[in-house]
């Protein structure tokens, strides 16, 4: 048994922890989440199990046989042909080929079609091309295929969009104007999500993955929930809602969905309104703190996700991309901790998928 455990910080750099340090980080990370969201801390058995996962000396870890989970993947095949800004590896292949690779060579359970910018706004004027790609891929593929995109409401504000930018208005104290601009943008965003999603409905997509939701705060979350409600009522598309981070920011501050104030919602509370809107899968996102160890971050993420899993009526697919779920914020991911993050969120967080 080794005296120290080699793991990593949230920025990916290697660090050696004593067993006492490891346990302290696990307990502290869980307590931090519990204190903020007023949810239970991980129990002693959970902490013991996490300690085992991180103390295991192998380069990579895996779930116990029988504990495997379903994978959904935001961005999907885009990471094969994309560039550095998306951690893409720049292979010259079409996304249709990428989807087939992810299905047949890499064993993914589901796949996605997505615009290279992965946002609803730029996908809208090209939706006929997006439909073609989806329709053809549906003929070729066996696994369920989502259309994936981010709400990314920031694209609707000047200079990228038509509406006044709240980031310019708020520092001047023009709060009502900033709120009005967010509502205008949210209405346009909701319409764009519906436009693209209905186009995917026409060509037989299995579902829509609305990813990185609420990145621009509560107004973006409201637009998404309204779009989800409409799609769940009038189509039979499966809808996955993945979040941007663990706390919905109140850039507007006074918005609610069916009486529930959106600003300040924690993952298990986000889940409640997402379920209420009619979504089929929920993806909690817990932002990784780069100045804390991966064990600290993973214990924190597991605490949030375990509470989601406890109260959920729909499957929970925890976000485990770069910078969320305890995965380090670093361009080239270290396999040692990435695999441990997944194992922990499945076996301690009780996630239904990743």
């Amino acid at each position, binding site marked *: 048994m080794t005296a120290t455990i080699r793991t990593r910080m949230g920025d990916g750099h290697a660090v050696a922890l004593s067993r006492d340090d490891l346990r302290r980080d696990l307990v502290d990370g869980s307590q931090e989440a519990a204190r903020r969201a007023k949810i239970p801390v991980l129990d002693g058995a959970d902490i013991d199990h996490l300690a085992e996962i991180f103390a295991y000396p192998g380069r990579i870890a895996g779930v116990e046989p029988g504990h495997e989970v379903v994978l959904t*993947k935001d961005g999907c095949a885009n990471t094969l042909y994309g560039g550095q800004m998306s951690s893409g590896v720049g292979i010259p292949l079409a996304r249709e080929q990428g989807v087939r690779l992810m299905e047949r060579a890499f064993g993914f359970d589901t796949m996605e079609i997505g615009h290279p910018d992965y946002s609803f706004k730029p996908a809208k004027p090209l939706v006929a091309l997006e439909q073609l790609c989806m329709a053809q891929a549906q003929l070729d593929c066996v696994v369920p295929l989502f259309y994936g995109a981010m709400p990314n409401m920031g694209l609707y504000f000047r200079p990228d969009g038509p509406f006044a930018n709240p980031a310019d208005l708020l520092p001047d104290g023009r709060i009502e104007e900033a709120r009005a601009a967010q509502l205008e943008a949210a209405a346009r965003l909701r319409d764009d999500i519906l436009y693209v999603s209905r186009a995917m409905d026409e060509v037989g997509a299995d579902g829509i993955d609305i990813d990185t939701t609420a990145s621009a705060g509560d107004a973006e979350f409201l637009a998404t929930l309204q779009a989800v409600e409409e799609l769940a009522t009038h189509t039979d598309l499966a809808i996955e809602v993945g979040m941007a981070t663990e706390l919905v920011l109140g850039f507007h501050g006074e918005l609610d969905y069916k009486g529930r104030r959106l600003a300040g919602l924690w993952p298990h509370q986000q889940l409640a309104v997402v379920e209420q809107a009619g979504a089929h899968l929920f993806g909690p996102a817990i932002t990784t703190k780069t100045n804390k160890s991966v064990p600290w971050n993973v214990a924190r993420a597991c605490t949030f996700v375990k509470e989601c899993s406890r109260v959920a009526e729909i499957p929970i697919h925890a976000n485990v991309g770069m910078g969320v779920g305890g995965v380090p914020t670093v361009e080239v991911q270290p396999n040692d901790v990435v695999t441990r993050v997944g194992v922990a969120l499945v076996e301690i967080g009780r996630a239904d998928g990743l």
Partner: protein
Amino acid sequence: MSLCHALASGMGGIRTTGDLVARMQLRKMRLPQAKRFVADKLGLSVADLADSTLLRELREELDIGVVTGVATAAKGIEAKARIANLLGVPVRSVDRLRQKAGP
């Protein structure tokens, strides 16, 4: 990174039964219920659902798509039509094919 998760935690897609369990999750089934549903339909134990050796043969026997290139095996939409029948659930692209194929 996504391949790390596929190897460490994923069900294995069409190597095993990952696509089938995923289809039940798209109908709001939590993981244990989705696995039990698929296992019952295939006559397997839940523990067998991610066994690639077992599923390679069974998927070819059921003709629901196999991971290797077998010319005579059902491909893409053909496999999904059989999966819809096997699971007893609608698959949207298969419904579209039937609509396009006409009466």
